[in-house]
């Protein structure tokens, strides 16, 4: 049972790796493509997985950023992410984890409430992004944001560390209690 640790490997020169975790394969694939299309000074590597823990048989580089993608249409994706969180070392949550929520647009299909995910993000003190991954332009925008975050987390931006970024981002306020 391997737990993801942020510092267990040496960083590769000018390479940044991001791990996207979600049960929604198609969306992940599209997001990965959008991220790779972005103009970036560092070499990007995108790893996709359904859930953690990762099989330890594969040799993989050091992971700089984990993005958990939850879709509001499926309770299962939420539970899956909740469980995967247990396999992440606590050191990761110092700015190297991000939650991404999709599907908030179609209210009728939502089975998970926004506040539930917001509470999760607040508990783990990590930034929460909302995006409708099915729309091309929104996806491109969020891909750009993630690439920037990744560069910072990989240390490719001088003077800013992942933790700095976390502090600079609006602190996740506790979501309003459900009535």
């Amino acid at each position, binding site marked *: 049972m391997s737990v993801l640790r942020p510092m267990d490997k*040496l960083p590769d020169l000018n390479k940044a790796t991001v791990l996207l975790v979600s049960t929604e394969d198609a969306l992940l694939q599209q997001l990965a493509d959008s991220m790779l299309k972005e103009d970036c000074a560092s070499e990007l590597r995108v790893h996709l997985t359904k859930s953690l823990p990762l099989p330890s048989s594969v040799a993989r580089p050091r992971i700089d950023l984990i993005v958990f993608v939850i879709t509001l249409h499926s309770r299962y994706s939420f539970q899956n992410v909740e469980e995967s969180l247990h396999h992440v070392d606590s*050191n990761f949550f*110092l700015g190297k984890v991000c939650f991404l929520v999709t599907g908030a647009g179609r209210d009728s299909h939502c089975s998970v409430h926004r506040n539930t995910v917001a509470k999760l993000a607040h508990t*783990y003190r990590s930034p929460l992004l909302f995006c409708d991954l099915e729309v091309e332009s929104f996806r491109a925008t969020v891909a750009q944001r993630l690439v920037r975050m990744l560069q910072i987390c990989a240390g490719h931006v001088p003077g800013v560390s992942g*933790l700095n970024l*976390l502090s600079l981002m609006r602190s996740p306020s506790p979501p309003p209690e459900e009535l």
Partner: protein
Amino acid sequence: AWKCQNKLSLFGTETLTNSNAQLSLLIMQVKCLTAELGQWHKKTLEITPLTEDVLITLGKEEFQKLRQDLEMVLTTLQSKNEKLKEDLEREQQWLNEQEQIMESLNLLHGELKNQVGTCSESRILNELKTKIISIKKFKEKILITLGKFLEDHFPLPHGNIKKKRKNIQESTAQLITLNEILEILINRMFDVPHDPYVKINDCFWPPYIELILRNGIALRHPEDPTQIRLEAFHQ
């Protein structure tokens, strides 16, 4: 780097549960931020030494940027120049047109001034009098011409024709010329405009009546066939 790595790998891993996540994370964040802060304090910033190569590269970059900016400024100014030239042309044309209008208006003004200057009441009266006289003369001329024309082309019938119509009641009245008929009609038209109808007299020679009716010179009264009037050519 290897030494640090080894040290790090010795650290145990810790995973979080939802309950203890917040507090432990916050504590960790405080620790790490303080450490980073300390690091920033200690670190002295290195300046890239200004060797010749560095200076040359930097200089080249600056010049490139400057050149690009100047080129942009040049193109903007050129297009502005073009536009200004066009505006100037347009305004010039407009000015020319206005000047022409001004000239013609001035001419008109001059002429009118001349006319107005010499105007006085007696002058107006005299002008009107001369107009009336000329119109009267014209009227006379026309009437004379009409009379001559009618005499030539529409004379009164001779005595021979009367013999053929013995059974018809002969009118003992003297026939009047077409000229006279027309005169009667015209006078009636202007004397009594609301009732310009004239009763057909025995003096009127019937064929001539037919002639003027058929050619639209006179019209019958809509209810009374014995009355005719002149067609209102002047209305």
